[in-house]
Every structure is written in C-alpha cells, then in structure tokens.
C-alpha cells in the first residue's frame, strides 16, 4: 500500500512514455527533454526582466564564439572566442568523464574538485616552477596530474573497501583537507604578493598556449583539448570492451552477483576510483596549468561539482558527455556577454546557468520516474493500491 500513487499509470504518462521511446531512444530523448525544460525555465527568468529570451539565448552563443558578434575588439574574432570557450571546455570534459567512470561502478565521486586541486598543485610546484622545456614539461604535467588524481581516487576507494567509509563522506572530507592544506602551502611558500594567488607557472609547462599571434589575431590555444576526444573514446572502450570495464559494470549493477562471479569487489572499487581520480587529475592540470596559470588559495573550483550534472546530462556516456560539456560550457562562457548585451545582471546569468544544471540533474530524475512507470507497466505482478480518488486514472 505504500506505493499507491505510483500504481495508477495514467494515459498521459503512457503517451509521454511513447514519445520518449524505448530505452535506447531514451538515452537521447530524456536529456533533450531536460534541456528543453531548462531553456523554458531560463526563458521565463529572462521574460521576468522584460527582455527577449531569443536574443538572450543567441547572445549566449555569440559570447562563446559559436555565432558572430556584431563587432569585435582589436585582435579578437569569433575564432578567439571559440578557442577561449574550448579552453574552458577541456577540464569540464575530463571532470565529467571522471564522474562517469565512478558512477558505472556504483560509486559517486563528489571529490573531483579536490582531486583536481591536488593534481594542479603538485604539477605546479614540481613541473610548473621548474625550468624544463615545453617538450618535456607538458607531458610531465599530464603524467603528474594523472598520478596525483589517481592516487587520491584510489585512497577514497581503499577507504571504502577497507573501512567501509562511504565514498561521498570520504570525498567531501578530503576536499576540505586538500583545500586548506594546499592553501596553507600556497600562502606560506608559493604566494604571489600582487595577485594573492600562487605564483604563475612557466609558459613552457602551461598546457594552453597564451596570446599566440596569428592571422592578425591574438588567441589562446588549448593544446590539451586534443586529448579530450581520444580520452572519451578510451573510456568508452574501457567500459564496453575490456575485462576491467565488464567487472566494474557488474560491481556497479549488482555487488552480490559480482562476488558470486568471483570478481574481487574491493579491488574493482579501488581501480574504478583510481581511474576516476586520474581523469579528475587531468581536469585539474588542464584547469590550473591551462585555463589558469595559478591557483587561488582557499577556493575549490566549481568545475568538479558542475561536472556531476554534466555527466548526468550526458547520460554518463562518454560521447554524451562531450556534448553535454559543450552545452554547459557554452552557456557559462556566454553568460558574460549575454549579461552585458542584454543588460541583465551577471548574477542572473549565473542563475540561468544554475537552472540549466538543475534541470539536467532532473534528467536523471525523469529517467528514474520513466523507468519506474515502465516497470509498473511491464510488471507481471502488479502492485496493490488504492489512490484516494478512484477515478484518478481517467484524467487526461
């Protein structure tokens, strides 16, 4: 009797289920539905300010270099805007992939930001402040990022396996520890007196080439972006075609069956978190030694948290994540331009970004409800129940 309200499968729900299609189609149709909802919500907010939502959304695209702006400052063009957006997109993709790998094993890596910070900090002090030439420094930065992030991830997985500490709790607490220890180290040893941030890393170690002069423009070239698509494909391959991926997925879907099949569940959880952490490490170095060249003490980047929503919006699928990362980055990058063009306060632009993230997480909720409704439809053993109104099913 406890599930009474869900038992009445209404015709409206059925029609809705039909539109969303079968499971395969749902993986695309549900995120699209979530995006649609978020655009609608954003449009309402913009309308409340008495502005035209269509121009506002176009200015999002203009601000991130997808559409041309009416005019550009010297040495700027659509290309420079686009590259700048891609610069911001790179860490987001890695971070969302990190969340996805853990999620497949049934683990929730909410510590991506902390892992990014550790990777970025260690890479900065070891390679970033050295005099190594770019050809050595850049690969080294990536490797340090992978290793440091992976080590933190593995630690969280090990804590879960060895002491049964929930990974969410461990991640959040470690986030705090890293945030404050690293800010202490920066303020004590590496602070730049002018910017109050850590000393900037050498240009050779920075993964983004800054202010490159070409075609009469001055642009930033995010080299690490070249790695994002191969990494996404690699993660896809890992999950779908390798023995490790098969084991991780079984552990994620049914831990008892995994144990029964002879899989070392603890080892799988540690491996999964290590891989997730390593990807977060890549996100960290591409953020702190790419998009930025320094670390602001006592601040945990929001990329690691936004990436959770991005991952869910992309259906935790590596290819889906490429698209969802793009969408979210376009919006957050375009929000500056939108606010100045539309004369909407910057904060409101942030609210709209937040709304979109909110609704993208709601995609997971929609999916959950849909699968629940579906299960009820296909459940051979139906559930008992009596809703307060007997004619509840006749509406719509």
């Amino acid at each position: 009797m406890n599930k009474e309200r869900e038992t009445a499968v209404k015709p409206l729900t059925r029609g809705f289920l039909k539109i969303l299609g079968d499971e395969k189609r749902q993986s695309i149709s549900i995120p699209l539905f979530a995006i649609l909802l978020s655009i609608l919500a954003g449009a309402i907010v913009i309308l409340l300010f008495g502005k035209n939502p269509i121009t506002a959304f176009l200015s999002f695209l203009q601000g991130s270099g997808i559409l041309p702006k009416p005019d550009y400052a010297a040495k700027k063009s659509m290309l420079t805007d686009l590259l700048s957006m891609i610069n911001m997109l790179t860490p987001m993709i890695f971070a969302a992939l990190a969340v996805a790998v853990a999620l497949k094993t049934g683990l929730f890596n909410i510590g991506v930001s902390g892992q990014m910070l550790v990777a970025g900090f260690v890479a900065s002090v070891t390679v970033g402040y050295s005099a190594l030439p770019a050809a050595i420094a850049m690969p080294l930065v990536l490797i340090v990022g992978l290793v440091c992030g992976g080590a933190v991830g593995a630690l969280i997985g090990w804590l879960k396996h060895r002491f049964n500490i929930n990974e969410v709790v461990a991640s959040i607490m470690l986030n705090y520890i890293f945030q404050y220890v690293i800010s202490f180290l920066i303020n004590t040893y590496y602070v730049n007196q002018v910017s109050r941030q850590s000393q900037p890393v050498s240009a050779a170690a920075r993964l983004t080439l800054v202010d490159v002069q070409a075609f009469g423009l001055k642009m930033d070239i995010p080299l690490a972006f070249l790695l994002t698509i191969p990494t996404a494909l690699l993660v896809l391959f890992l999950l779908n075609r390798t023995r490790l991926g098969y084991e991780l997925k079984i552990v994620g879907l049914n831990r008892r069956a995994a144990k029964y099949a002879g899989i070392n569940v603890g080892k799988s959880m540690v491996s999964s978190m290590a891989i997730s952490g390593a990807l977060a490490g890549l996100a960290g170095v591409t953020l702190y030694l790419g998009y930025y060249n320094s670390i602001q003490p006592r601040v945990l980047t929001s990329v690691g948290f936004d990436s959770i929503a991005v991952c869910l919006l992309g259906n935790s699928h590596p290819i889906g994540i490429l698209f969802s990362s793009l969408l979210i980055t376009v919006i957050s990058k375009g929000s500056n331009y939108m606010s100045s063009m539309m004369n909407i306060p910057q904060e409101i632009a942030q609210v709209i970004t937040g709304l979109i993230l909110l609704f993208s997480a709601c995609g997971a909720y929609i999916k959950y409800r849909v699968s629940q409704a579906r299960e009820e439809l296909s459940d051979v053993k139906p559930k008992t129940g009596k809703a307060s109104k007997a004619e509840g099913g006749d509406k719509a």
Partner: protein
Amino acid sequence: MDEYIVEMRHITKRFPGIVANDDVSIAVKKGEIFALLGENGAGKSTLMSMLFGMYEPDEGEILIRGEKVHITSPAHATALSIGMVHQHFKLVENYTITENIVLGQEPPKRFLGLLPAVDIKGSNKKISELSKRYGLEVDPTKKIEDINVSTRQRVEILKMLYREAEILIFDEPTAVLTPQEIDFLLDIIRELRNSGKTIILITHKLEEIKKVADRCAILCRGKLVGVMDVAATSTKAMANLMVGREVSFTLDKNPAKFGAELLNISNLSVKNQDGLTVVKNISFSIRSGEIFAIAGVSGNGQTEVADAIMGLMPVSGGTVMLGGKNITNLSVRERTLAGISYIPEDRQEVGLVLDFTLADNLALKEYFKEPFCKNGVLQSEAFDDYGNKLAEEYDIRSGQGIKTVVRSMSGGNQQKAIIAREIDLGSGLMIFVQPTRGLDIGAIENIHRQILAQRDEGKAILLISLELDEIIGLADTIGVMYSGEMLNIAPAETLSAHQVGEYMMGVKAV
C-alpha cells in the same frame, strides 16, 4: 448471465515480441473458488493484472456484475471491490499491522480537537474484530518486521477485507509457505468462500486446486485450453493440459554408482553478519556420482553451508576439502576454477546481472579466460558464439535471442540460463540451492532430469531444498539441518518422508 460476477471476454494482450493472452474468455460465478492453472509465462498473471487494472487489454472486454467496465488502475479495481494478494507482499516493514492495513484509507481524527491525526486506536480495534470474524487472528500492534511470512500473508488478506473486496485474487499464495501453513491457508480460502466472497486462485500446484477449487481454467502459452470442473477431472489430465504434453510424475533414477570422495566438510562453523553462529560444527562428505541433499525448514543454516563452500561467506571454523585439496581459504574465483558450480537460491540478485544481456550473463563465470578475453580485451564474437550455443543446447527462450536483457526474461528461462552456465563449467562439484523454487511443473521436471544426468556423469551434487518431495525424489543421501546443526545423515532409502519431516522440526534431536 447475471450469475457471473466476473466475465472476461475474448481478451487479447500483446507485449513486444509475445502474445501474453490470446483470445481468452473466462467467467467466474459469484461465491466460487475459481483456479487459474498454467506454467510460468502461460499468461495467468497477465490476465489477472488486467482484472486488477495494471494493464488494459488490447482486445476484448471485461464485465463485472454484468456491467461492462474499463478498469484503468488498481484504485479503480478496488472501487469495484476487487482485491489482490500478490506473490511478493507489499508491506511497510517498520509499520504495525494496523498501520499497513489502513494505509491510504486512514480513519481521520483530530488530536486535541485541532491537529489532524490517524485514529490508530480505533483502527486497532476494528482490525482486531475483522481478523476474528474471518479466523485470521493477528496482533494488530505488531510490526511487520517482527512477524513471519504466513502472518504477513494474513495481513495482505486483511487489507483486502478492510477495503471490503468481494472478488479476491490470490497470486501463487502458497509459494512461500510450509505444508502446515498451506493447509491453514486453504482452510481460510474455503472460509472466505463460505462467507460469500468470490475467489480467483492463481497457481501451478495441482494438489491445491484439487483440494479447494470448484472450477479451474487452464492456460497454456497464452491460450485458454479448457475450463473444467475440478471434482470431475484427474490431476494427471490437468497437468497434461497445462504443459501441453505428457508429464511423468515419477523420475527415472538409475542406480547410484558412487566414486571417490570429492567434497569433505569437517567441523564447519559459519557466523553471519551479526556475529551469530548459524552453522554449528557440521561434518559431511560427498562422493562423485552422489546426490547429497540437505533438508530443513528455511533459515536453519542450509544456504550458509552452500555459501561457505563457495567462499561467499567466511568460515569461522573447520575445513572444506575439495578433491583432497584444502580450499577453506581460497577466493570465490579460485574455488570456481578448482571445480565448483553453484546455482544460488536468489537467482535474480546473485545468479544473474539482470541489466546485462543473456550472452553477458552466460559468460559470467568465464569471461576472463580465452576465448572470451584476450589481453584484457573482451571478444564479443566469443560471447555471442558461446551464448548461442548454450541457448540452443539448453533451450533458453528469450524475446531477442542472446541480446535480450535478462531482466525481461521469464523466471524459468532465467534459471535455465544459470543452470546452463554452471553445468557447462564442467565442475566436479555442483551445488544446487532451491533450484526449482517458483518454477512450474514442466521446468521442474526438466531441472530434475538435469540434476540426475549430472549425477550419472559422475558429478558430486549438493542439493539444498525446502521441498521435501524434491529431496526424497532425488537424493542418494539425506542430511537434515535444524538450527544450524546437522541432526542426521542417512542413505535416502532408509528414511521416510515422515521421518525427515520430524527431523526438520527438530523433534528427533540426537
């Protein structure tokens, strides 16, 4: 025509790839016990789901008390005074019996004349009266988590009666009960009929139908094959109609040819997660070519013995020897490779990954070996070939072949998949825990034949079952467990079912 309280005319219901009900017509008289008999997947539950408003039929019509109705939801069905007891109970564990029964229809009152509250005291009284009236005595203030399965079932029945249901549907009500509890339930069902209720009983157990039902409709692969007067029909005739072929009730068991001792358990003790000793110092051995069956009432440590042998539960004392090798401290994977196959009790939560395809599940124990995996990369062709091979050899049926997600397969075919996989491992020791639970006669017969075939091939077999008939029919040696102890081990031919039953109750403690 108005003597019929329920009429379902020319009902057809299709699901993707399958016709669950094909032009089925039944009519139930007021005040009778009407049984629906059929194998798993024959369409019994689907038919009743439509009566209870879970699905709507694609074709055909439903008449309740002579009036044509469209039942759109269980709520609607309840309003038409139709009630249903599901095979898996729908109760809130940490609520009391009363709270569960009134849930959704709580009698309101005002606390201090102001705050809305639920009149629990009044409800307790009402439930208590209701339970006495129908001989379903329960203590309304007890929590669900503290009461046993048969009492929970009573709560489900009371829930229907509280809602004043006139048409009561029971879905496989005896699947979870012991023989004594079954008799008691059948009495209750009779009692309910005598007080004027109409009962529809879904089951695949023939004896129950013979005992209580007035009439019986038999479904086979979605089609109605006959409606008969139970008193005038033999059990055998019903079974043949249900399966669609001749069924042999007796098993052809070859004389045993025992080989060398394969499994040796000595002084085994197992503690559960709460630190309680659930298996106490038991010893036994199994030879190749022998079926060793452990009988016992559910929850007396039998499954823990199996889990300890497989390595799924840690051993707190004693040794497990397989083929002369001490395997007590090996991992599950190492034991699998050493030659143990395990058909677990919980096929959906342990034996299968429900969201994986059939092919992926069939390779669950061997995926890491060649040809399935080369240098850490899975070979999908090998998965497909192996899946197709097993699906054909063991007649595993599914909507979309080996690409079917196992969740959507019927229980019988899920079990076939597990058994196919475990037999094909070629292990010397095979552990079957409750291999036929919830399956229909055809599937049970098939599994029994496979178990005997494995024994004749010289495998050592450990069979753990709650079905006494199954144990008596298959075992060469019977051990009875009671409260974590092995009370008696004896050759099967020296024990009668009655004696085993006594040991199971702990009566004949040694």
